[in-house]
């Protein structure tokens, strides 16, 4: 019964953009219809997904809906629907008559395909849904394809997503070979180590490319920065998580993982997490910075999954439970707070028409609700209490500490590097969001763009507030969602008996609620006291200390590169910032300028040069492409004769 609700929800999303195609381009009716249909679809889907928990799991040769599917289905139905509402103002059809219809068609399709991937129990269905998802996302990224930067980001995405699909074809072919059917079932115990490793590595590469795991993240920053903001939210919030879904699913099918698989995931997650946040600190573009934070959070999720794999190798149920529950809960949490952040970044861009941090400033006064939402999202992404990011990172921390093996426990000392790395990630994230929030919302406006702005309307702030509410709910009452994630752990790990683990026993979730509430009470009390005192004393405004300089300007505030300079300096070995600084100046210096930017180490440092080299080598064969049809036919003859001779 409940699976039909999910199918209906998927269907609603899939067709939501179609009626708008038959409306006039400057009419908003199609957009409103699409949003309403999306909301109905999501409501049906969420009811169906939650309902399916109370009935035996649907599992046949085509469809499988278990707790893991439900965990991924809920954000897939929630976030795109909210993004659609957000788009009513952000991407109003009347203002985007050339691409609004295309955007909504593929927005609905990508949502439906994402949901399709999570319920597929058959590799053919999985791949079909996967390709619909991947191609729709390409058209979403290239919404404004007349811009050269946008189309470049789109092509890069297309190349990487097809590389991922290629890996998946190989992966599913191997699975088909082993199990003898296209149904995704647990692999037999007697699987050869080499074959199992090949399946695992193909899954890591194929799904890692989609998830944006460093160093496979090359498409992610450009695509997130160039897409419309609600599309960025959808991509960062749910689309890249489908890569995690695939990895989680395949890992659950493989029997007896060796220890180094978990170790590999832990290391990959750590690299992705640390370097993701480090590269984020170096960015000047608000959305590109948020995109690098997606790389970081995917790293944290992968660390959790790696921990769960280590736990399975060591037969430690507590590590499996903490790692997987932490990873899956972080999938939710990142989807929630990253969507808040992209929505508020979009509100800033909508109001100011720029996403360069160095052109913004002082927006908190004009856009208080957006600023509040961004601040809460920032606190959540830094993994601070009382918000949801803290809960999932706490689970992973606890699991990592347990996995080291204290006293007589079986453990793996190798995972000892992970907790400090996770702490480093958290600290750097705080620094990064201090920079962003300070640069964008505090201080004074640095350009005309930022001077005359208005608060975003209810269509844009409403979805943000809903998501912030979800963040607070999970942060304050993690016990509400803990049973679902326990179900997810049982569904993932075939050797765990139901009832073997209890997250409440393993993690102090009650204390999280108590401490969170206490913290909120403290903040509210302090705020009220401060407000009373301010009203009592009155306020006066004056300039800050300006080193004796008589004419301070807004441009003398910390910029995004000056704030980050010290941290960028610490990581100069990997960031390799390009700095264009003025040289020695005469006594009365002329007008000069300073620029710095941080290119992506994998894309600009490794891939582009190697592709240029490849192009140089292959261009010596260009004479073969003579443009002469007879020559081409001649090649076919030669090839045919060679093939016949070869036997």
């Amino acid at each position, binding site marked *: 019964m409940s699976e039909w609700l999910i199918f209906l929800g998927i269907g609603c999303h899939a067709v939501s953009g179609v009626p708008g195609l038959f409306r006039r381009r400057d009419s908003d009716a199609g957009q409103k219809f699409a949003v309403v249909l999306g909301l109905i679809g999501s409501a049906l889907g969420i009811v169906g997904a939650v309902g399916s928990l109370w009935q035996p799991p649907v599992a046949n040769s085509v469809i499988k809906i278990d707790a893991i599917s439900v965990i991924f289905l809920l954000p897939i139905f929630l976030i795109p629907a909210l993004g659609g509402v957000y788009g009513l103002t952000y991407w109003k059809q009347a203002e985007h008559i050339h691409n609004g219809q295309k955007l909504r068609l593929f927005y609905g399709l990508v949502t439906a395909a994402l949901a399709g991937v999570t319920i597929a129990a058959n590799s053919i269905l999985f791949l079909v849904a996967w390709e619909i998802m991947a191609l729709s996302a390409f058209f979403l990224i290239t919404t404004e394809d007349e811009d050269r930067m946008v189309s470049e980001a789109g092509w890069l995405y297309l190349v990487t997503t097809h590389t991922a699909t290629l890996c998946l074809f190989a992966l599913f072919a191997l699975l088909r070979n082993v199990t003898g059917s296209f149904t995704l079932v647990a692999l037999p115990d007697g699987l050869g180590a080499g074959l199992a490793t090949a399946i695992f590595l193909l899954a890591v590469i194929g799904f890692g490319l989609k998830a944006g795991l460093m160093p496979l993240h090359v498409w992610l920053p450009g695509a997130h920065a160039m897409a419309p903001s609600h599309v960025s939210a959808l991509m960062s919030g749910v689309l890249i998580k489908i890569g995690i879904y695939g990895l989680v699913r395949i890992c659950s099918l493989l029997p007896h993982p060796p220890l180094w698989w978990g170790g590999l995931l832990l290391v990959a997650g750590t690299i992705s997490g640390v370097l993701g946040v480090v590269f984020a600190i170096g960015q000047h573009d608000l959305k590109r910075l948020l995109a690098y934070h997606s790389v970081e959070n995917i790293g944290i999720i992968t660390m959790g999954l790696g921990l769960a794999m280590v736990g399975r190798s060591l037969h430690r149920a507590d590590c499996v439970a903490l790692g997987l529950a932490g990873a899956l809960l972080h999938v939710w949490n990142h989807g929630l707070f990253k969507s808040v952040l992209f929505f508020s970044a979009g509100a800033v861009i909508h109001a100011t028409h720029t996403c360069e941090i160095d052109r913004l400033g002082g927006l908190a006064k004009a856009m208080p609700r957006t600023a509040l939402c961004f601040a809460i999202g920032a606190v959540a992404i830094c993994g601070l209490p009382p918000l949801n990011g803290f809960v999932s990172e706490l689970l992973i921390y606890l699991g990592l500490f347990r996995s080291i093996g204290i006293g007589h426990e079986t453990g793996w000392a190798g995972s000892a590097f992970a907790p400090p790395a996770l702490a480093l990630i958290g600290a750097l994230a705080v620094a990064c969001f201090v920079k962003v929030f300070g640069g964008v919302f505090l201080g004074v406006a640095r350009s005309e763009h930022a001077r005359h702005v208005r608060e975003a309307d209810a269509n844009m702030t409403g979805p943000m507030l809903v998501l912030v509410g979800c963040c607070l709910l999970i942060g304050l009452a993690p016990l509400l969602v803990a049973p679902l994630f326990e179900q997810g752990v049982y569904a993932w790990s075939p050797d765990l008996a139901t009832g073997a683990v209890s997250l409440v026993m393993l993690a102090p979730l009650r204390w999280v609620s108590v401490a969170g509430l206490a913290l909120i009470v403290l903040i509210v009390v302090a705020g009220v006291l401060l407000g009373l005192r301010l009203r009592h004393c009155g306020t006066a405004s004056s300039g800050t200390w300006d080193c004796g300089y008589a004419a301070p300007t807004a441009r003398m505030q910390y910029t995004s590169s000056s704030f980050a300079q010290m941290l960028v300096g610490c990581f100069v070995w990997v960031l390799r910032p390009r700095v264009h600084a003025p040289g020695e100046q005469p006594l009365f210096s002329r007008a000069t300028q300073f620029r710095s930017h941080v290119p992506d180490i994998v894309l600009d440092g490794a891939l582009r040069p190697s592709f240029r080299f490849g192009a140089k080598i292959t261009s010596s064969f260009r004479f073969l492409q003579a443009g002469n049809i*007879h020559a081409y*036919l001649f090649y076919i003859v030669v090839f045919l*004769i060679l093939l*016949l001779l070869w036997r």
Partner: protein
Amino acid sequence: MNPLLDLILVAVLLLNFVALGASQLRTVIHAVALQGVLLGATIVVAHSTVTVWVIVMAGAVIALKGVVIPRMLFHAIREVVIRREVDPIIGCIASLLLGGVGTALAVLFSKTLPIAHEHIGSLVVPAALSTVLTGFLILTTRVKAISQVVGYLVLENGIFIFGLLLVEAMPFLVEIGVLLDLFVAIFVMGIIIYQISQEFSTVSTRKLSALKE
């Protein structure tokens, strides 16, 4: 095997050489038309029991390959005023020689291919391969778009002869598939000829290289 079939295939092989060696486009088209008629006849010969359906099929093939398509080609020659000579890249003698080499190679290859027992010793496979190679030879060595169409037809005839191997096993599939393929080919080539003469006021495919990237 089937002496009548082999006899017809020998005629088809000879017609390949006529198509390669003739200097007049008309002669080439006539040769290909005759080849088409002979291929229609092979359908009847290849079947062990001749039914009405086989006759209808053969009639359709003869009508299409022997009458309709050649008439379209003659029509094209008249409409798009083309000089009546073949205008090859390499001379007629050289094409004939290459055709001979191709046929020799075809006989050689047919020995190495894994073929069902009852077809060993028959001329079907060498004739098919040789006709395919001849088609390719015409395609690669002739300049005019209309010669390209003819080359494509010869190529298709070669594939049709291959189809004779399967004519008992799955007759309908093979025949309809080949005919459909042929129609598409004529269609596409017709468009190409029309477009070339419209856009470039020439029907020489040499000018196509201007479209190179």
